[in-house]
């Protein structure tokens, strides 16, 4: 087990290194940030001054070395745009993203799991078709469109909800629904397929043959096993919701990490983009590492095979 954990941690560190190199190079391929921070017509010496200030006049490998060594000491650099440490910016926005992601996740599970169960139990019937339509719409309607329609209806037409910003439960409703719908659809589809598989298994058939009530068969025996892949997916989705709800946070002016990433990309703010991607990636790597270790702990075959 110890050897297994050491190997997995090694893989995780390698993944983190590759992620940091990839994002470091990718942001620099997109162009020079100084052209976006001054007006066209600014003097070359101002531009050069700015490049020097941001360390962009250094060779690429020096820039990476500075980035990597600072990262190890917990310093992810200063934002070009905000001129404040990016970690400070990240942690200022994190509570908002956590709040939005938590509510969106609860909504997505509350909608996705029951509708998935219903669709599986009534396969081929009305509820199945309704569930499929719901998931098709959730996955295919662009979030910006859903967001704008909600704003038009609830903010402009009815005047019930604030169109943007943060501050209270009212501000949270529309962005959480917009974000949650997409993931509710994904959770619904997975619950449905997982339930169908479990409902077809021998032990469920046996439970039915034993004359157990249908509610007990579905609620106790089938659902428990069917939910394992859904919960695993939800864990990863939660990290995605926290870090890359770019469209929803931009449309609703929600001050979270997704919008920080959007601003970072818009202004070629390399340290911001690097910080969000590396920290988001780290979260996914850590979650996967924990899941791997947990699986190996539960099932000895996994650690022996690897």
């Amino acid at each position, binding site marked *: 087990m110890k050897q297994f954990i050491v190997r997995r941690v090694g893989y995780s560190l390698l993944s983190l290194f590759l992620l940091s190199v990839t994002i470091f190079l990718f942001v620099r391929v997109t162009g020079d940030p100084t*052209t976006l921070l001054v007006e066209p017509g600014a003097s070359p010496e101002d531009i050069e001054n700015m490049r020097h200030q941001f360390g962009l006049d250094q060779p690429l490998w020096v820039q990476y070395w500075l980035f990597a060594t600072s990262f190890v000491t917990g310093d992810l650099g200063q934002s070009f745009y905000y*001129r404040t440490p990016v970690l400070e910016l990240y942690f200022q926005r994190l509570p908002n993203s956590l709040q939005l992601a938590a509510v969106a996740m609860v909504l997505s599970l509350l909608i996705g799991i029951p509708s998935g169960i219903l669709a599986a139990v009534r396969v081929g019937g009305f509820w199945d078709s309704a569930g499929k339509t719901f998931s098709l719409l959730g996955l295919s309607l662009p979030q910006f469109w859903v967001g704008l329609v909600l704003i038009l209806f609830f903010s402009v037409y009815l*005047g019930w909800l604030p*169109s943007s910003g943060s501050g209270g439960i009212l501000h949270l409703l529309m962005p959480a629904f917009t974000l949650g719908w997409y993931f509710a659809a994904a959770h619904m589809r997975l619950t449905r397929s997982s339930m169908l598989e479990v409902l077809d298994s021998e032990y469920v058939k046996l439970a039915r043959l034993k004359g157990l009530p249908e509610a007990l068969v579905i609620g106790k025996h089938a659902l428990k096993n069917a939910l394992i892949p859904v919960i695993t997916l939800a864990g990863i989705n939660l990290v995605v919701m926290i870090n890359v709800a770019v469209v929803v946070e931009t449309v609703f002016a929600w001050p979270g990490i997704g919008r920080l990433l959007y601003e970072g990309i818009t202004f070629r703010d390399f340290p911001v983009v690097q910080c969000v991607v590396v920290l988001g990636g780290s979260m996914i790597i850590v979650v996967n590492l924990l899941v791997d270790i947990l699986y190996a702990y539960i099932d000895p075959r996994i650690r022996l095979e690897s």
Partner: protein
Amino acid sequence: MTPRSSSTTRRSVLALSAAAMTGLAARAAGAAPQDELRIASHVSLAPTWFDPAETPGIITPFMLLYAMHDAVMKGMPGNPMAPCLAERCTMAPDDLSYAFALRKGVRFHNGEEMTAEDVKFSLERYRGAASKSLKERVARVDIHDPHRLTIHLHNPWPDFLTYYAGATGAGWIVPKKYVEKVGEDGFKKAPVGAGPYRFVSFTPGVELVLEAFEGYWRKKPAIRRLIFKVIPDEATRLAALQGKEVDIAYSIRGELASELLRTPGLSLNPAVSSAPFWLYFPEQWDSQSPWHDRRVRQATSLALDRDTINQALTMGHSRLTGSVFPENFEFYWQPPKPAYDPDGARKLLAEAGHQRGFDAGEYYCDASYANIGEVVLNNLREVGIRVKLRPLERAAFFKAYAEKKLKNIVQGASGAMGNCATRAEAFVAKGGVYAYGSYPEIDALFAEQAVQTDRAKRTAILHRLQQLVQEKAIYAPIWQLAFLSGVGPRVGQSGFGLIDGFAYTAPYEDLTLKGQG
């Protein structure tokens, strides 16, 4: 569960929802208090904009500087260089020094009195755009008494005031003692200035709250509280304005501007910025290129239906000056009004040997303004100039433009501050960042004006230079862009357009809500 009980449950759920939503609505619909003005900003506000020392070469930070700080001299209604913290500025006969007499009794938000020490400190501390040129040319600053100082230059520099009191943040004054006490980072977290509004709080990416400074020297601001809310999406900004969540929404363009005009109680307020747009012909110095022929360049200009473009994209509010120099800039020369004459354009093309028109290659533009390019392309096609639109992402476009990699036609623009001489330096004169070539007579005039300290003579030289730019058809100007913003029903004086060439609302102390003075 029986159908009856189900129905009862549904009804009660609906009733409960309705009651809840009514309650929510009552809370959500709460408009801003009577003495508070909410402004929806199109860009994220950066803490560096709270500090004049960091002013980059863009206009946006001035949106906040006008609220929190004040300058020795600055653009005000009817005067692009109005004395503010200085009562007067006198240039020495030898053009080597500028003496400033400061206004007495001016206080910063923390109660300290503004003195010549603060003015000197702010200039020396300045590290934003053009700081190098400014500091290289300033020899020293002499303080005579708390309200009088002189800035000495190494050599005569006719553009000193343009830079000091216009294009940079060097003339915007911060309190020396306070900055030294709290440090650079501390100042950005709790800025103190001498402007009409003082800092209350800032939540990055959310909002900036300012409160009226009752001791402001010019006048007591009419509105007690200003709140800048960051709403990056244009449609959401409009929705917030329609829902009365904000009173002013910056940057509402095109279709959304039409929608705004259809909403009762809202008005569209244009402010013509200092950003002219143009077509540039980078191959005009290549004798093998069709653009070498001046008649082809003139034909391109005649083909542009500027009025229609203006109506379609900025509701007719952009200014068709016919120049690539902003009309509010010092030394501006007004060229004849640009004509729309497709027949004349075809005639000129025929004379240049392009009776059937010609394939003109590609039309490069910043992707965020590709909508202008789409209309222009149709205009050009109508007279036989066939080009393909090549929108490039903003940074990539300006990089390629500056590195002189673009060909055929370039749709360019600039909102950089300065005067006509600084604009000519970047876009017309030899070696200019965006000049792909130059003409000897223009270069000679440019060199001549740079050392000319007699204002009238310098004006005459720069007028002649602009005339040559027009005669040689180096550019085909499109317009001077109008920045469109929406204003809600509560606003009395919105402040848009009061300061020439300034896109945002200002001076803030002049803003009023309806029912106020």
